[in-house]
């Protein structure tokens, strides 16, 4: 009974994503999509992946993390670095992209474990502050990093390109604040949607499994979870690192959507982490489908409202407030359930009449 309900709910979530894809395909085939919207499609997928993965940490594990953009940054650079290095070895762009995704996820996941071991001992605000610092540190570290490749192998410096001491034929891959340039633009909307579906598959199946139950039991009552023999450290780390790995995937997708990748405050900074958190909180903590919808609406809205010029941010703010009330206020939740009851009753009476 219960299991079927979960299955139905999850299927609806997948269906929404697939329906969006079909809709966009139809619209673009008939020429109804502006070039602006087209440019927004891959970032939308990136934000959705980020929001869903952060929801795993914030909503399911119940720990506030403000360093999600940091993991995205790690994934982006790991993926782009791999793509650049393998330019000669694997000629197929698609194949390189595929491996880059795996490597980005693995490296970001590894960072999740490394950061998680000391950091997950903290709780609440303290955890938030440390993860925030992590995001900033990663960004700044990458900004001073110079990595080059020549026949002798890798060269590494944190000063400038000349101090790499490379042969003439060598290539500088990461150029400090300029980042990585010349990554192939391999990301498409379809690939983005596939990655969104994979992310959903991982997160939703994790939640409805033995590990997910353990993670949620830690969120609800750590002491009780310990008393029934659940390994707190293991499951906290698991949720945190899976969340980080998925953020890494979003990062690789980001890196392959642009021809040059640099770590700026705009893309991997504190604001980005907060924005993802806003998606998660507005969509509802622990509500995966909510995260998707919030990410899509809040990303697409400012662009769609461009025509309204001065009123744009006003409407954006109103939408934020309305969504918050609709999702979180007890009265609104009550109203929603009453409405759903009525809708159901209506349907059943209609069925009986028929």
């Amino acid at each position: 009974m219960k299991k079927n309900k979960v299955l139905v709910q999850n299927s609806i979530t997948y269906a929404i994503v697939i329906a969006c894809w079909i809709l966009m395909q139809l619209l673009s085939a008939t020429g109804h999509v502006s070039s602006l919207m087209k440019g927004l499609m891959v970032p939308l997928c990136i934000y959705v992946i980020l929001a869903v993965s952060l929801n795993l940490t914030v909503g399911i594990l119940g720990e506030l993390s403000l360093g999600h953009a940091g993991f995205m940054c790690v994934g982006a650079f790991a993926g782009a670095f791999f793509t650049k290095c393998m330019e000669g070895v694997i000629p197929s762009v698609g194949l390189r992209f595929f491996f880059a995704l795996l490597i980005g996820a693995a490296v970001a996941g590894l960072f999740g474990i490394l950061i998680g071991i000391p950091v997950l001992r903290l709780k609440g605000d303290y955890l938030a502050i440390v993860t925030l610092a992590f995001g900033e540190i990663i960004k700044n570290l990458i900004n001073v990093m110079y990595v080059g490749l020549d026949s002798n192998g890798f060269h590494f410096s944190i000063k400038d390109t000349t101090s790499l001491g490379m042969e003439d034929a060598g290539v500088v891959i990461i150029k400090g604040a300029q980042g990585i340039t010349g990554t192939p633009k391999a990301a498409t909307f379809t690939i983005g949607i596939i990655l969104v579906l994979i992310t959903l598959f991982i997160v939703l199946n994790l939640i409805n499994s033995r590990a997910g139950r353990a993670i949620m039991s830690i969120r609800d009552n750590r002491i009780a979870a310990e008393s029934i023999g659940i390994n707190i450290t293991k499951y906290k780390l698991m949720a945190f690192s899976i969340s980080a790995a998925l953020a890494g995937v979003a990062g690789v997708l980001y890196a392959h959507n642009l021809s040059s990748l640099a770590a700026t405050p705009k893309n991997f900074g504190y604001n980005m982490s907060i924005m993802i958190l806003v998606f998660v909180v507005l969509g509802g903590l622990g509500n995966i489908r909510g995260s998707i919808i919030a990410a899509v609406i809040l990303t697409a809205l400012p662009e769609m409202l461009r025509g309204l010029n001065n009123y744009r941010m006003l409407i954006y703010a109103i939408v934020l407030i309305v969504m918050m009330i609709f999702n979180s206020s007890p009265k609104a939740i009550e109203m929603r359930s009453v409405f759903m009851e009525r809708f159901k009753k209506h349907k059943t009476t209609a069925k009986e009449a028929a």
Partner: protein
Amino acid sequence: MAMLEVTNIGISFGGLKAVDDFSVSIEKGQLYGLIGPNGAGKTTVFNLLTGVYKPDTGTILLDGSNITGKRTIEINQEGIARTFQNIRLFKDLSVLDNVKAGLHNHYKYSTMEGILRLPRYHKVEKAMNERAMELLKVFDLDQEADYKASNLPYGKQRKLEIARALATEPKLLLLDEPAAGMNPNETAELMETIRFVRDKFEMTILLIEHDMKLVSGICEKLTVLNFGQVLTQGDTSTVLNDKRVITAYLGE
């Protein structure tokens, strides 16, 4: 061989000896009561037994194996499960999932198998559901299996906590004031349940309780704590008629 053999455990917080020289021996299948005035150190004893605190002195043997100083998780795996004075359920999980969380260490599949929904996932989850429903039925909670745990009435939340503890297949069950906040009818029902659990699962039970009707009704043996020390222990009727016990509770 006793199921639980505690010898001379003690713990101090700063200069305060919260529990001092506490010993108890509980036979398999016994219903044992731990009573005493407020602040006597009863819950501290539970916390020592379950590894929340490590005892400064003394040893704890469970079914012959030494569990002194082990971590809470290990102690649960050795076979001690508990409930809490202030109910600690997983409030946003369903009633069924609360019990299934208790089954965590007995029905296993890897996280990978869970994510990829391999055959073992389906097989183990099915077995888990069956076992959890069986336990819920014992406590008359099977109708509420899909409820959120926090939506259960108070008495049922207490029962669910016991069901969750039993799901970990313990050798010894610790109940911390199971009747707290219950009305006389609910308490009477709870007494039935505790007795039933002992008989059906052949469980050894140690409980803390203030409700003397419950204590005298179901406990076979008692230990009385006062200011962290054992005042007296023995058969329920003897202990409850002991002058010192009455003085400890009511004063001179």
